[in-house]
């Protein structure tokens, strides 16, 4: 059974058809590259899965049950996590504080509850160790490298039992060495049985790490095939429209 199943999803903003009749499914432990030019509808599609937008038409099924989400917090409760393009980190806070932002651990009784620093440092440290990232929970994010910042943002998705992680352009603005680090983080999520959707403009990254590629153009899905059966040339053609559509 698929983790997530989208059926005939459409979204329009007034007269603009951002996403048009898109269907696909996600399997556990699978990395899917979502590609397309600017304005192809990738972000809109992902925002619907993340609960930011409600689809105009179509249905979503999570593990066989239909879900309707009104806000991002509900997506989170369903086990859908997103790593935002700008990572959504606070530079003035520690790595651990960023990992737990919005869901801080507290201890105490009733209304008298204080932040549980010790547990948050410990758990954040474990997550960084799992991700094989040299990131110290007590360090301020301000002082961190691009790869470490990615690790902090990704560790956030591992706090709860995530089923799906959506990653918006995680390799867009970082150095070559850090890209390798981030791709390793993605493989790590996959090995844990999490379905990863990787939105990217970078062909090499998608062909390196993804199992399957979905290409969108002008709001429509124009390709959905195994990486092994495709090629960067073909995907480029699909993105630009040189190739109309493949099965």
């Amino acid at each position, binding site marked *: 059974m698929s983790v997530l199943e989208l059926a005939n999803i459409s979204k329009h903003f007034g007269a603009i058809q951002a996403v048009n009749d898109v269907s696909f499914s996600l399997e556990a432990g699978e990395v899917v590259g979502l590609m397309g030019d600017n304005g192809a509808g990738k972000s809109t599609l992902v925002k619907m899965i993340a609960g930011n937008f409600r689809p105009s038409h179509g249905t979503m099924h999570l593990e066989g049950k239909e879900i309707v989400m009104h806000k991002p917090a509900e997506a*989170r409760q369903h086990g859908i996590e997103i790593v935002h393009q700008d990572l959504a980190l606070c530079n003035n806070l520690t790595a651990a504080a960023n990992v737990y932002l919005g869901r801080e651990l507290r201890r105490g009784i009733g209304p008298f509850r204080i932040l549980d620093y010790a547990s948050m440092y410990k758990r954040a440290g474990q997550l960084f160790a799992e991700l094989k990232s040299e990131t110290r929970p007590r360090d301020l994010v301000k002082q961190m490298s691009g790869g470490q910042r990615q690790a902090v943002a990704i560790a956030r998705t591992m706090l709860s039992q995530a089923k799906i992680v959506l990653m918006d352009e995680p390799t867009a603005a970082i150095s070559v060495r850090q890209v390798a680090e981030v791709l390793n983080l993605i493989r790590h999520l996959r090995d844990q049985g999490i379905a990863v959707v990787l939105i990217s403009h970078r062909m090499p990254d998608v062909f390196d790490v993804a199992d399957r590629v979905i290409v969108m153009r002008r709001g429509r899905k124009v390709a959905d095939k195994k990486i092994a059966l495709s090629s960067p040339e073909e995907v480029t053609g699909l993105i630009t429209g040189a190739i109309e559509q493949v099965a």
Partner: protein
Amino acid sequence: MAVTLDQTIAQKQHTFLSRLFANQTFWVVIAVILACLFLSFATDAFATQKNLFNITRNITFVAIVALGMTFVIITGGIDLSVGSVLCLCSMVLAVTMHAGYSIEIGILATIVTALAIGAFNGVLIAYLGFPPFVVTLGMLSVARSLAMVASNNTVVFQFGPDHQKLLALGGGAWVFGIANPVLYMIILALITGFILRWTKFGRHIFAIGGNEHAATLTGVPVKQIKVAVYMISALSAGLAGIIQTGWLGAVTTNLGTGMELQVIAATVIGGANLAGGVGTAIGAIVGAALIEVIRNSLGLLGINAFWQGTFIGGAIILAVLFDRIRNFRRSD
């Protein structure tokens, strides 16, 4: 021996001392102590019980409002209305008690007034997207004008049946001969410090100041928290107003004029960053202390009072200069 990943992750980069030396508040404390030592030797009048009592009490009004301002500044906002709100709150207290109501009702009315003003500022800023500078600048004018309306621009110095209770509240020294206002300041500073360090609310305030967009995306209730910090700021002005009324024994409509700038100066000298994301309770107190010590010392050293502004302004610029120098070094 190879360093394992776990060791790297567990490593603490900063010792207690290195963190202390990197802390602006620490250096301001040193400056205050040095100034006090110097003044004790240079003048006969400084280290007298009476003068110290005066200084500590003078610090408190600015410091209490600075505690509230710290919340606002950490979120990256600013509240210019505190001086006027302090005046209006004092006037509400004075007029209510003058009309024959008890001190409890007077204080209740004052606190409700403060919270209402804070909520008004906060809702405009958080939900309607007004710039904090403009909203609170408007409120600076409105609150002072309302204080004049409430009192018909007269001095109120009779506080009805509970007159003595109010004077004792602000002017007494109930514990170990420490002036009451100082006690209130210490209690409020402890509460502020606790909230900032140990509560989810405090953590979220820092998050908003660090990256408001990120806070929103991660599910922090940004709008509600912004309203709350402006209510806290106004409340601190209201409390300072109550205490100051009890201490002075009279309320005029120019009470707290220009106070907002002293308060902002105190928080900035104490290490808060106007860009948001940084600030402490102890910093607010220490900043207020430095300003008061400078003011007091100029008088004692026989320097013309006209120089006061220059010295206090210099302290503000110097405090921020140290912060800039540290940042330059870090970015190298």
